[in-house]
């Protein structure tokens, strides 16, 4: 066997493995839809309901949907830092940060209920140590983003996520009788999950639902017209956000009839361009740490942009 044969075989095996993983990606949301597993968390959620509803105390709800690295309820250090800063900056808001946007059951990848949990436990451990193999979690969650954006599976996945967000809003004291505005903050792939759920949430809760997508990766066929406002934060040094705009044809300016382009024309979408912010890690939108003394602190700027976006007039069309 020549070196080229081995290389070819390895490439083919990798391609088949990727295709198989993508093939199985919709299974979780489809089995949720088909009611193959009982939803046991209802009683637990009810037990957690606060006595006084938070809607009476808070002027708005902010739901944070994390990026595709997330396999458990833990956020990376700089994300925790960002959330703490944001909570200080917007004290009148109730924050929902305990959602895993890549599982309609809100299940950790390492949860024992999952057949592959031993595998994910090892990968998670490697990710925690900074090993590149931890990227498998990103890949798995990226496939969920693709499921959410798919024409056939999207509406099912997005209904699952909407239900999850609804439950968590109620769990945190959202009062549907006295609804207050909601903002979904989607970081990276969380942007697609927010895009898939926002309009549906707005229709069900009859309250304005806006989205702030930080380096947002989303398709252009989501119902952008049915939500209050979309703020897209991007940067000249963020290739991931740019690639998403290329990967999904409905985001191409050429397709004027797409929901994304219609929403842009109706003024429902606004862009905030950052200079020098990376997609993730040091120097990213949410990180206090910078690559050099000359580059500014992106975290502070992001907080300011979010504060300003939260002031966008809110109304239901």
């Amino acid at each position, binding site marked *: 066997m020549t070196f080229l044969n081995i290389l070819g075989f390895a490439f083919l095996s990798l391609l088949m493995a990727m295709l198989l993983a993508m093939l199985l990606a919709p299974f979780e949301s489809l089995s949720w839809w*088909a009611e193959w597993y009982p939803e046991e968390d209802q009683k637990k959620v009810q037990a957690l309901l606060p006595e006084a509803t938070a809607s009476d105390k808070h002027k708005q709800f902010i739901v944070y949907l994390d990026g595709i690295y997330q396999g458990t309820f833990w956020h990376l250090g700089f994300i925790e830092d960002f959330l703490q800063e944001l909570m200080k900056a917007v004290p009148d808001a109730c924050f929902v940060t305990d959602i895993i946007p890549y599982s309609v059951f809100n299940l950790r990848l390492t949860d024992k209920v999952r057949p592959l949990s031993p595998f994910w436990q090892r990968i998670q451990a490697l990710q925690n140590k900074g090993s590149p193999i931890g990227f498998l979690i990103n890949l798995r969650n990226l496939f969920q983003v693709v499921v959410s954006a798919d024409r056939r599976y999207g509406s099912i996945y997005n209904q699952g996520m909407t*239900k999850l967000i609804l439950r968590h809003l109620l769990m945190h004291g959202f009062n549907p009788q006295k609804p207050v505005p909601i903002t979904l903050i989607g970081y990276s792939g969380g942007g697609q999950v927010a895009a898939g759920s926002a309009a549906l949430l707005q229709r069900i809760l009859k309250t304005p639902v806006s989205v702030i997508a930080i380096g947002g990766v989303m398709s252009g066929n989501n119902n952008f017209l049915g939500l209050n406002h979309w703020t897209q934060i991007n940067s000249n040094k963020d290739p991931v956000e740019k690639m998403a705009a290329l990967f999904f044809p409905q985001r191409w300016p050429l397709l004027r009839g797409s929901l994304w382009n219609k929403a842009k024309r109706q003024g429902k979408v606004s862009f905030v361009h950052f200079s020098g912010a990376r997609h993730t890690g040091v120097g990213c939108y949410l990180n206090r740490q910078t690559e050099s003394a000359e580059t500014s602190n992106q975290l502070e700027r992001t907080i300011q942009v979010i504060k300003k976006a939260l002031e966008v007039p809110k109304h239901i069309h």
Partner: protein
Amino acid sequence: MQAFQRAVGERLELFFGVLRLDARSFLQLIDLQHASFTMLLLLLSIGLSSAVGQSVVLFINRVRPVQFVWVLVSLGNYVIAGLLFWYLSTFAIVRFFWQQNLTWDLMLQTLILACTPLLFSLFIAVPVLGLIIELGLALWCLLAVMVGLTVVTSLTLGQAFLSAIGGWLVYRLLYTLFGRPMLFVIRSLQTRLFGVVVTLDPAELELRIKEGEESLKKVLTEYRL
């Protein structure tokens, strides 16, 4: 055992040849001993693979895990039935329009072989890329049909192309005319056999998804606030 392994290896090699659109592989497979059995296996595998590729409809229908395999097999049969109707219409065009002296079984074997790329149709279920894969497989099959028809008839590539497209158009016309009643019969059969109501009608499937959106409102009443 060795003979069996050799036979399997030989057939696999020929199938790879068909996938590469190699005309000789078509002829060699048709001339094989027990060719009909090989074709039947191929057809069943294509049916099953296509059924997996379209299995999203079974999930939308909320088919339970116990019934899933049976309903999947019946969906495979439905795919095979569709292919057979397409064979019939293509055969009619080749035989009566182009005046080719061709037996039914030779035509059937050729067209089944030409559908070999559909063995990969389970990958149609891949999110987003599935639609591109579906288009790619359809084009691959079209090319294979053209090669296959030129091997067993005296048709040119252009005539073979027209036969394949014409056959498909006639099949779609028949499906538009008789598809709905056929779906109704299949649904009644499935309901009787598996105790589950399965719809394959795109409009009805969309309606079920919409109903799901409406049912989300129930979440608000689940909690006494």
